[in-house]
């Protein structure tokens, strides 16, 4: 389903959804952070929530994980209502918050052990679980290391292990790879995919990285201004955007007429001016539009600095539904940022 999603989607196979969000609303005074959002996540599915900063993704995830009370609607996790059966919900879920919150002074083992105790995992089972999750995130040989001595990627893996130490069936990850270098990010993706397969986890993650959503998620919901604006598989979402290909063209010289000229080419559905002389052209036929472009430039005596053709990406989907790109977002600085601890690795 690609169109504006307003109710629990029809992709369910008749079984009880792992996560069901029905007409969820969250208000802070007169401000409505989440407006009548509905969707469901099937068991074993990896579900992505995309959206610009301030769109309501984190609010939604916090509503689902019992961290903030919901104003209206209903959210059930593994059949348990987050309002009336909050404790049962908490036992079913593992949550990886956006920030790295493991204790830097404690060892990996101690961090995991304390969280296992918070979930009342019996002692014998605790040791087994810790060993298993450490193997799953490939940190066995680091179990005795203080977390502050680990790299950013390893710390993120500690967070993931911590979220799994009580064997949850549903896993919430709020921007799990933010701040990681590309290699660590890919390692986390592979690990999450592996965890889903081996542990039969249902995952709901928020992300800023379209590539991450594309690679990991079975289905994606795009949220903007607190509203669900699109929902579907990555392929469905890409098909929902007019134009099968994207042609990126960079002219040597910027003239105001270029946008109009590009829009008049046959097959072109939309033209986005990115920067001076640089355009993204959505077209139904990449090869035909490329030919026309080269001919047009030659006839006008203009020089093309670069030209590339690619399939529609989730970036295009995102821009199509939210009308803006992530990099255009003005990020409100946090009120206070804790200084890094001495000795902590960035």
């Amino acid at each position: 389903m690609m169109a504006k999603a307003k109710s629990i989607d029809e992709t369910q196979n008749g079984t009880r959804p792992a996560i069901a969000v029905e007409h969820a609303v969250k208000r802070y005074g007169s401000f409505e952070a989440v407006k009548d959002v509905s969707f469901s996540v099937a068991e074993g599915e990896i579900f992505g929530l995309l959206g610009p900063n301030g769109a309501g993704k984190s609010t939604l995830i916090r509503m689902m994980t019992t961290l903030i009370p919901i104003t209206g609607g209903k959210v059930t996790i593994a059949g348990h209502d987050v309002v009336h059966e909050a404790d049962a919900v908490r036992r079913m879920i593992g949550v990886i918050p956006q920030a790295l919150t493991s204790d830097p002074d404690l060892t990996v083992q101690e961090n995991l052990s304390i969280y296992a105790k918070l979930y009342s995992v019996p002692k014998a089972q605790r040791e087994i679980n810790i060993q298993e999750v450490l193997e799953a995130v490939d940190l066995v040989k680091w179990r005795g290391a203080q977390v502050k001595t680990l790299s950013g990627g390893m710390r993120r893996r500690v967070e993931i292990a911590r979220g799994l130490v009580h064997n949850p069936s549903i896993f919430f990850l709020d921007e799990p790879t933010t701040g990681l270098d590309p290699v660590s990010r890919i390692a986390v993706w592979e690990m999450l995919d592996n965890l889903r397969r081996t542990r039969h986890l249902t995952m709901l993650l928020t992300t800023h990285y379209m590539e991450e959503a594309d690679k990991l998620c079975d289905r994606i919901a795009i949220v903007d201004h607190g509203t669900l604006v699109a929902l579907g598989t990555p392929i469905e979402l890409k098909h929902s955007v007019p134009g099968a290909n994207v042609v990126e063209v960079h002219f040597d010289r910027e003239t105001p007429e270029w946008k109009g000229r590009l829009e008049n080419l046959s097959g072109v559905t939309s033209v986005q001016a990115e920067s001076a002389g640089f355009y993204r052209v959505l077209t139904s036929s990449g090869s035909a539009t490329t030919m026309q472009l080269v001919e047009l430039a030659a006839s006008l005596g203009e020089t093309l600095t670069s030209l590339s053709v690619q399939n529609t990406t989730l970036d295009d989907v995102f821009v199509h539904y939210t009308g803006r790109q992530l990099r255009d977002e003005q990020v409100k600085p946090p009120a206070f940022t804790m200084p890094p601890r001495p000795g902590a690795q960035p």
Partner: protein
Amino acid sequence: MNRMFAIVEREMRKFFRSPTLMIMSLMMPILQLLIMGNAFGGKIVGERVAVVDYDHGPQAVKIREAFDSIAVNIKTFTTVEYTDEVQAREDVRTGKINAAVIIPYQYSRRVYAKDAPRLGLVVDNTDQFSAGSIETEMQALVTALSSPVLEPRLVNSIALEIVELYPYVGYMKFLLPACVALAMYISVMIGGGMLYIDDKARGVHEGYLVTPITKLELVMGLNMAGAIKAVLSGICLTVIGSLMAGLGVIFHPEALLELFCLIVVTSIAFNGMMFLLMVRVDDPLVPRAMFGVLNLLLFYPSGAMYPIAAFPAWLRAIAVIDPFTYSIHGFKAILLKDGGFAAIQFDLWFLLIFGLGSLLIATPLFKRTL
């Protein structure tokens, strides 16, 4: 219960891995004890007092001999000869000398004639400690000079015989109870205030809130950990401070038990108060800003440095509800007076009720959600 102890375990592991909290909570009170104890505790010696002798008679010589005795024995001051009263007064004003004694013309004659003889003493009363010390010595000297050479067989004046119950209490000893309470306050302020809010800001509490831990378990776990840290600080400072001040009370098992009980209830009271103050705070700057204000508001009105009886009514009102008041009173009763449980009974009950009362108010205010 296990979940509560998991919180305590986490806090204590952090505490011992990063000894900064322990060191910082002990450093200031120990320095205070060391510096203030030595700076304020000693007797004043070596002051310079001008003698302007206009008389030069036998009674004036007697006074000068007494001054020489003071200079050699008690050493409160030494004398400097001046010939001009105006110059002496000016030098007291400018600080070249600390005081001036004026022996007026005809002083000896007036003494013999029993004609109201007078000595003049010019002091710099901006320095109350020095001035008071010189005044006391001079008063003793004048009293001695006024005493009859032969005591009458039947004394008709009333004499006051003072019995001091305890051995001499030096200033360092006097300061120790306040320093122990201060060490625990700093421990609670850092551990229960600053680090608690820092953990909130870092998202550590968010990690707790997604687990099935109950509100009560979380509150009790955080407070128990805070109280244990404060108890450890209190014990450390009691032992170190007692050794520094030369108090042997820590070697008496009964006194140790009393001290331990007092340290525990003080920790509960301070921690409960801090938790109540911080329960709805999210900004890490707030506890840092409050640190000095609270210290001023709670420490000084407690009678730690000056008797509460001398306070105006509004300051006494603060002292009545201030947990420092009862903690310091209790520590004084044990460390300086060996008063036993009977002497600290009220303090123990007040601190315990204050701490539990604060927690009772704070717990419903604690939010189980973000």
